């Protein structure tokens, strides 16, 4: 009764069934795109196990936050207030620049860039496949997360959402060997592709001709080509260039700007089209509730 397969099959038959099933599952999972919804559903089913594994860390950080000293809190408060003041001063300047930029763009008849909707997500402390650079975050389909969404930290792009569960999702880091992100050099808009090497502190630029205008210290920003990543966020900084003429291409190594080895809080971005759609529905951009989006669009459909 408690056996997965009914009695009657011999051990060897059951073994062969499991092997055939595994190989079929592997093939379907990697080659067929449409099963990702099934996978998302199954992932949501097993997510309680992830929450259990996350618990010791969560309890530890909770108790740490409970028992921080008053002195520490005061110091933090002071430092943060200082930072906020500095940043809001900077923001004021940005606002003026943004207005100016909009006006200039209007003069040129260029489309005005929308503000991107953002949401803070937190890393879940669960371990993953050691052969791949992935992390699990605590936001999922109910928060409006979608596959391919850009994920950032405070200093740069971290990766993209790979799998969406109901309450949590899996993010593939830019350092994974299977990951590449179309970028451009912010100084001169030369487009390059930044691919992962399987190392957290190093990325590679492939197929860069010797004649390319690229220098150590150049900042690479996402180009938005490929329609996966949001345009204009910093990705990496060029750290070393070896121009060996005997090689077909220059060897360029770059460092990711995001602190991939000390991720805690992350930022999820919603690209412009979705944002515009939400705006057309008369939705306030700052709303983070996906249920509301659904409600509003539902109402609009009814009106039509």
């Amino acid at each position, binding site marked *: 009764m*408690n*056996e*997965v*397969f009914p009695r009657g099959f011999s*051990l060897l038959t*059951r*073994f062969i069934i*499991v*092997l055939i*099933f*595994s*190989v*079929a*599952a*592997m093939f*379907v*999972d*990697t080659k067929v795109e449409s099963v990702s919804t099934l*996978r998302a559903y*199954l*992932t949501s*089913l*097993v997510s309680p*196990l*992830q929450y*259990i*594994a*996350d618990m*010791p*860390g969560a309890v530890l950080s909770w108790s740490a936050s409970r028992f921080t000293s008053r002195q520490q809190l005061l110091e933090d408060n002071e430092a943060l207030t200082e930072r906020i003041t500095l940043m809001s001063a900077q923001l004021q300047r940005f606002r003026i620049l943004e207005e100016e930029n909009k006006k200039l763009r209007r003069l040129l008849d260029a489309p005005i860039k929308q503000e991107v909707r953002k949401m803070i997500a937190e890393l879940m*402390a*669960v*371990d*993953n*496949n*050691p*052969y*791949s650079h*992935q992390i699990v975050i605590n936001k999922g389909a109910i928060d409006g997360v979608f596959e391919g969404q850009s994920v950032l930290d405070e200093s740069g792009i971290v990766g993209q959402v*790979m*799998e969406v569960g109901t309450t949590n999702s*899996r993010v593939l880091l830019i350092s994974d*060997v*299977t990951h590449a992100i179309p970028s451009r050099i912010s100084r001169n808009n030369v487009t390059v592709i930044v691919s992962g090497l*399987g190392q957290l502190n190093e990325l590679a630029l492939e197929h860069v001709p010797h004649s390319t205008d690229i220098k150590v210290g150049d900042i690479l920003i996402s180009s938005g080509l490929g329609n996966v990543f949001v345009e204009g966020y910093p990705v990496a900084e060029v750290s070393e260039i070896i121009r060996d003429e005997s090689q077909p291409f220059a060897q360029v190594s770059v460092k990711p700007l995001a602190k991939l080895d000390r991720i805690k809080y992350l930022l999820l971005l919603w690209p412009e089209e979705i944002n515009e759609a939400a705006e057309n529905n008369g939705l306030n951009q700052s709303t983070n509730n996906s249920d509301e989006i659904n409600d509003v669009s539902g109402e609009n459909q009814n009106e039509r």
Partner: protein
Amino acid sequence: MRGNPAFIYISIIVGLVLQIIPMPAQADLYRPDWLLLILCYWAMALPNRVSVGVAGVTGVILDLLYGTALGVHSFALAVPIFIVATNYQRMRNQSILQLAITIGILSFIYHLIIYWLQFWLTSIEFRFIYLWPSVTSVLLWPWLFWLLRRFRRRFKVA
């Protein structure tokens, strides 16, 4: 004799959690194969309860938790568990040292299969550090064996 099989499933769930519980980066390389050890014990002690079918299903759950392609871990777990299930009578008569060596070989097979499948799906490079878990698994096995046997007798799992 009817026993209570709930403990088998509890131990498998504990094994799954231990597989994904976060560890410091240095210790992470040496994480023993909790799930493989637990499944090996049950396949040896109660081969009619736990066998390749259970190994396949737990493997799929582990794939979902790890984010690997579905089927990688079910394949990799099914092979050593099949070996245990066909040789359980021989293994029951082995001394604790012999058994630890057998478990080491099974764990080695398990990691090699995972590596091969991963290599086939997303070409990764082989490093010998991937085999450290086999060593820690061997060291862990006698303690886990003792613990699970105590629980099995205490709760009359059958």
